[in-house]
């Protein structure tokens, strides 16, 4: 029979190796759907790699995709650390984007060093508020935050649609439901000439480092970890669980909101209802692949982004559905979950069943 024995101290090989292995297995498993779809497997993998890394342009595209994923990944990582199950990053992202558009499309104007921080703050505040609500419902009334944050994603998307057909509609858009463009002084400047990768990437990297310092080196970080590991014990030792949860909610929602700001002000230039192809949900995968480590989020966001960009380019070239990327990402999540089990437990295969 099979026995599981807890490991007291998994070594660095397991901690860093398992996520890499999980990602690799997910990519290899993609050969099955590729084969069933009748695609030339080796050619498909080759096209995926060149699609993500083959030129300066494709690397720029990959980094552009990674930017929101780092931010939503951080949003999930910090929330999950405190066992606040925020599955609403998608909605928080759209609220952030909407706040950025509301302020950054001409209502106020100023130099870039005013406008860019202004729309960032507005977007982060909007995203934070979207999560503080469900968090207070959880801590005060015991309402499950998983369901409320999930349902809010749908409500927010409809709300955005409503605003884009109403107050925020661009009169010049020929009837398309989209917002007025972000004004030039609020646009995130590109990092490379004629490339799409923009200053949002630097901001996202900065957030990852700042969050790592916060979690590892500050009292707040300690309290967040304590609440996540054992809320009753944390409460007993004098930590205010509600306060910590609200702080985590503000951080997590704010980061997701920032992802929305970065997408409208850096990548798209205006708000439409197809701004995010599920960055909020993919952020959960990014965070889990990173084992909730803020610095690890950078690496796993790069992986997920290259899967998306690579698969997109491959599917255009040989006509395989680009849903393959979502499939790889989902399999990576399940693989890393199983891998996480193997880092925490040793598996023994005994010849004879041992009683007791």
């Amino acid at each position: 029979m099979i026995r599981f024995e807890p490991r007291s101290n998994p070594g660095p090989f397991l901690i860093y190796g398992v996520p890499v292995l999980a990602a690799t297995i997910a990519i290899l498993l993609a050969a099955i759907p590729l084969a069933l779809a009748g695609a030339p497997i080796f050619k498909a993998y080759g096209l995926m790699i060149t699609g993500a890394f083959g030129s300066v342009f494709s690397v720029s595209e990959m980094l552009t995709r990674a930017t929101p994923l780092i931010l939503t990944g951080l949003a999930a990582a910090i929330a999950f650390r405190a066992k606040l199950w925020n599955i609403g990053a998608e909605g928080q992202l759209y609220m952030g984007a909407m706040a950025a558009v509301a302020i950054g499309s001409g209502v106020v104007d100023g130099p870039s060093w005013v406008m860019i921080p202004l729309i960032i703050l507005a977007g982060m505040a909007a995203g934070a508020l979207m999560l503080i609500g469900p968090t207070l419902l959880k801590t005060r009334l015991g309402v499950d935050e998983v369901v409320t944050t999930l349902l809010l994603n749908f409500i927010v998307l409809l709300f955005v649609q409503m605003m884009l057909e109403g107050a925020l509609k661009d009169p010049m858009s020929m009837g398309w439901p989209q917002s007025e463009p972000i004004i030039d002084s609020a646009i995130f400047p590109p990092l490379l000439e004629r490339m799409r990768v923009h200053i949002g990437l630097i901001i996202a990297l900065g957030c990852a480092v700042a969050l790592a310092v916060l979690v590892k080196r500050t009292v707040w970080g300690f309290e967040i970890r304590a609440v996540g590991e054992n809320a009753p014990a944390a409460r007993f030792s004098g930590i205010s669980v509600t306060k910590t949860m609200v702080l985590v909610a503000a951080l997590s929602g704010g980061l997701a909101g920032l992802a929305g700001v970065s997408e409208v002000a850096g990548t798209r230039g205006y708000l439409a209802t197809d701004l995010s192809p599920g960055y909020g949900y993919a952020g959960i995968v990014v965070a889990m692949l990173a084992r909730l480590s803020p610095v690890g989020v950078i690496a796993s966001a790069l992986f997920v982004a290259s899967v998306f960009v690579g698969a997109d380019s491959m599917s255009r070239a040989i006509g395989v559905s680009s849903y393959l990327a979502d499939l790889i990402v989902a399999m990576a999540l399940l693989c890393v979950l199983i891998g996480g089990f193997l880092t925490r437990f040793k598996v023994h295969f005994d010849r004879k069943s041992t009683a007791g």
Partner: protein
Amino acid sequence: MEIIDILLAASFWEAAIRIATPLIFGVLGALVCERAGVLNLGIEGIFTAGAMAGWMAVWLGAGLWGGILVAALAGGFFGLIHAILTVPLGLSQHVSGIGVTLLATSLSYFTYRTALPDVSSPPRIEPFRPLDIPFLSDLPFIGQALFSQTAMTMLALVLVFVTGWVLYRTPLGLAIRAVGDNPSSVEAQGLSVYALRIGAVVVGSSFMALGGAFLTMSAFDAFFFGMINGRGWVCIALTVFASWRPGKALIGALLFGAFDAFQVRLQTEVGAFLPSQVFLMMPYILSIIALIVVARKADYPKALLVPWFKGQR
């Protein structure tokens, strides 16, 4: 007065029951899983998989009941993945459920796109027809509201009674409820906690898949991307609202269906004054309100979300 007229029309209740049907399947599935102690957030993806697999089986010529079987098997398959990850391995039920939703959704979309690479309008099947039961379907009011639904709605209603009977009137049901409250007591009786939990999740997931199949095989006749649109998550909220009881699940789903049918009719009356999105938001807002209303007194299965390992005391 118009409101009274709306509520008294048989067509209104016909619509309410039709809207409620996928939710009945979904809530029953969710409550079977949760009664055994396992939250199944794979529900949204399992709905999608059931909708796609059932539809595709019919489209390939398996017949409507063949489609139902295929949908249930697809649901059971994804349920089994969730069960293995969360029961013997004891991994996070939240993360595994989200993972199953992502996997089932992307696999369904990928399969659909691969089978039908470049169709602009989705191909249609011949869906379940409204029943025409001699005498019953001709009754005034209830004949139209209830007995002219499709066979899948009848299946959902039968499933409510079967689930209630199994859970409360059989030793198996007692064991399932016990395994969600106090798994060690079940172990002490010599029953397998793992087998009961895995079995409940697989069966519950196949119920969920039927909810999805209803959409493509009865309510509509084709599969669309994004057609599940949060129905699975609504079911998770309704399960709490129904306090994990099949009878209350039926009432909750019907209330929800009635409200949804009502707001659609209200929209035609006052739609000029409010944007359509306000009405489309209603089901989600209603689900959140339902959760808030029952949150204080919600009696969650005691071992829900708590992993249990063999040999643990």
